[in-house]
C-alpha cells in the first residue's frame, strides 16, 4: 500500500513556505508601506466610506420622525412592494437559467462552449439603458410586437412585465457565472456514482448536485438580488414612471430627489444602502465558509482561456 505511485510522486510538490518579507518588512520598507496604506485608506474613504455615511446623515438630517414618515409614505411603500415583487420574479428565473447553463457547460463537452460562455457574459457589456431600449423596440407602442399587444390589450412596456424583463436582462449572468466555475471544479464523479447506484437524473440533481453547489448558488443569488433590487437605468427606460404603480425604489429615489425632497429621497435610499450592507455581510460570510468563491471570476476566465486554447 505504501509503494509510491510514480505519477503522484511526480506531480506532488511540497507546499512552499510563504516568505514573510511582505508582512514583516525591514526598516527601509516601512515608509513605503505607511505611504501606501495611507494612500489606499484616503482613496477608499473618499470614494466608498463617505458616500455610504452621507446617505444616512442626509436621511436623518431632520430627525427620526421625518425619516420614518418618508418611509411609511404610501408611494414609498408601493415602490418597496414593487421592488420586492420584481426581484421575486427575476431572481428565480435567472437561478433556473444559471443552474441549467452550469449543468450543460460543466457536465458535457460540446462545440461552441466557450462562445456560449462569452454570450452569457454579454449583458455585462451592454449599457443598462440600451437593455431597456431593446425591450421598448420590441414591445413598445411602435415596437415589433406593439400592434399585436395593443390589439390584445397586453401591456409589457410601461408596466410591471417590462420592468421584470429589463431586470432579468441586467442580472442575467450573475447566477450562471458563479455556478459554472463551481460546478466545473466539482467535476462529475459524484453524479456518476449516484447514477450508477440507480438514482434517477432528478434524484441525482436534488440529492447530490444541489447540496454540493449550495454555497455557490447562494452567492450568486445574493449578488443577483442586490443588482435586481437596485437596478436603475434599464428599469428607468421601460417603467414609464407612474407613481405608485411602476416606480421601483431606485426610481422613487430619483423622483423625490428631483423634487428637492432630499430627506425623503435619502430615507428611501438608506433602505437600499442597508440592503447593500446586508449583501456585503452575507457575501463575507459565504466567502469565509467557502474561500474559493472569491476567486470564481478568475477561475472562470482561466477556464474560458483553456477552452479557447
Amino acid at each position: 500500500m505504501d509503494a509510491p505511485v510514480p505519477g503522484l510522486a511526480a506531480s506532488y510538490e511540497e507546499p512552499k513556505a510563504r516568505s514573510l518579507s511582505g508582512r514583516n518588512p525591514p526598516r527601509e520598507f516601512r515608509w513605503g508601506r505607511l505611504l501606501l496604506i495611507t494612500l489606499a485608506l484616503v482613496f477608499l474613504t473618499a470614494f466608498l466610506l463617505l458616500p455610504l455615511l452621507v446617505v444616512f446623515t442626509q436621511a436623518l438630517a431632520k430627525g427620526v420622525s421625518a425619516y420614518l414618515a418618508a418611509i411609511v409614505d404610501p408611494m414609498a411603500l408601493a415602490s418597496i412592494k414593487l421592488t420586492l415583487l420584481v426581484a421575486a420574479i427575476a431572481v428565480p428565473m435567472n437561478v433556473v437559467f444559471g443552474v441549467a447553463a452550469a449543468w450543460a457547460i460543466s457536465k458535457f463537452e460540446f462545440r461552441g462552449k466557450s462562445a456560449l460562455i462569452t454570450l452569457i457574459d454579454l449583458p455585462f457589456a451592454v449599457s443598462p439603458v440600451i437593455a431597456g431600449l431593446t425591450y421598448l423596440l420590441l414591445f413598445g407602442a411602435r415596437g415589433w410586437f406593439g400592434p399585436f399587444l395593443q390589439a390584445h390589450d397586453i401591456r409589457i412596456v410601461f408596466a410591471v412585465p417590462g420592468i421584470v424583463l429589463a431586470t432579468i436582462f441586467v442580472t442575467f449572468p450573475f447566477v450562471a457565472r458563479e455556478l459554472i466555475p463551481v460546478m466545473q471544479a466539482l467535476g462529475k464523479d459524484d453524479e456518476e456514482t449516484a447514477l450508477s447506484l440507480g438514482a434517477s437524473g432528478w434524484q441525482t440533481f436534488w440529492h447530490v448536485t444541489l447540496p454540493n453547489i449550495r454555497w455557490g448558488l447562494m452567492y450568486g443569488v445574493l449578488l443577483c438580488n442586490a443588482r435586481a433590487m437596485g437596478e436603475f437605468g434599464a428599469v428607468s427606460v421601460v417603467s414609464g414612471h407612474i407613481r405608485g404603480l411602476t416606480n421601483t425604489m431606485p426610481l422613487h429615489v430619483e423622483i423625490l430627489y428631483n423634487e428637492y425632497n432630499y430627506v425623503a429621497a435619502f430615507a428611501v435610499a438608506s433602505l437600499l444602502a442597508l440592503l447593500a450592507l446586508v449583501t456585503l455581510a452575507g457575501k463575507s460570510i459565504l466567502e469565509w465558509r467557502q474561500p474559493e468563491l472569491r476567486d470564481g471570476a478568475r477561475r472562470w476566465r482561466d477556464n474560458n482561456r483553456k477552452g479557447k486554447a
Partner: protein
Amino acid sequence: MAGAAAPIRRPPLIPGFGLTLGYTMLYLSLVVLIPLSATFIRSLDLGVGHFWTVVTAPRVVASLRLSFGAAWLAACVNALFGLVIAWVLVRYSFPGRRLIDAMVDLPFALPTAVAGIALTALYTPNGWLGRLLLPLGIRVAFKPLGVVVALIFIGLPFVVRTLQPVLEELDQDVEQAAATLGASEWQTFTRVILPALWPALLTGFALAFARAVGEYGSVIFIAGNMPMRSEIAPLLIITKLEQYDYAGATAIAVVMLVLSFALMLGINALQGWAFRRHGAR
C-alpha cells in the same frame, strides 16, 4: 460468450444534456440575443445616410466622447489606485484590513441611484468634500469631472478583485531573489512584479471600462447633464426616447454597442498577448 466476464463498467451517461443546453439556448435567445439583434435591425430602418447624420450630430458626438473619455480616465485612475489597494490588502496586515476588504465590494452592492445622490451630496460646493476642494478651485459636481468621479466609484472593485488573487499567488521567493541579486525595490516592482500582474491589470481595466461606458444611474445626478458638456450618451438615448425619437435613440445605442464590443475584443486580444508573453502565474 455474453456475460462470461464482467465487463468494465463505463460510468453512466449523465442525463439532461438536451434539456439544459436547450433551455440555456432558448432563454439566452429570448432574453438577450433576440432583443439585441432587434436593436441592430431597427437601426437599419434609418438608412445609411440618416443614420450617419444622427450619429455625427455635434451633441451626439460630444456625448459619446464624454462617455468613452470619462470611462477611460476613470478606468486609468482605478487601475492605479486599484493596484495600490490590492497590494495593501494582500501584502500588509493592519487593523481593520478585513473590514476594508469587504467594503471594496460596496459599488457592486449599492444601487447606482443611491451612489449617484450620495456622491452628489458629497461633492457639491457645500458638501463634505466639495467644501474642501472649492478653495483649490476644483469643482466636481455638475461638471464633467463629476462624471469621472462617479465612474471611478463604479469601476473600483473590478480592478481590486481581479488583481487580488493574482497578487496572493505571486511567488515572493522571486522577489527575494531579485533583492538578493541587488535589484532596488523599484526595479523589483517594475521588472518582476508588474510583468506578472499585467494580464490581471488589463482585465480589471477592461471590466471597469466596460461597466463605466454604459453607466447611467450614478452619473446623471452628479453630472449636471449640460448638452455638449456633461451629457453622457446613455442619457442622450433616454432624452431621445422621451421625445419619441426612437430611431435616433437606436442609432446612438448601436454606435455604443459596436464601439464597446470592438473595444472589448481589442482588449481581449491584448490580454491574450500579455498572457502568452508573461505566461501564467
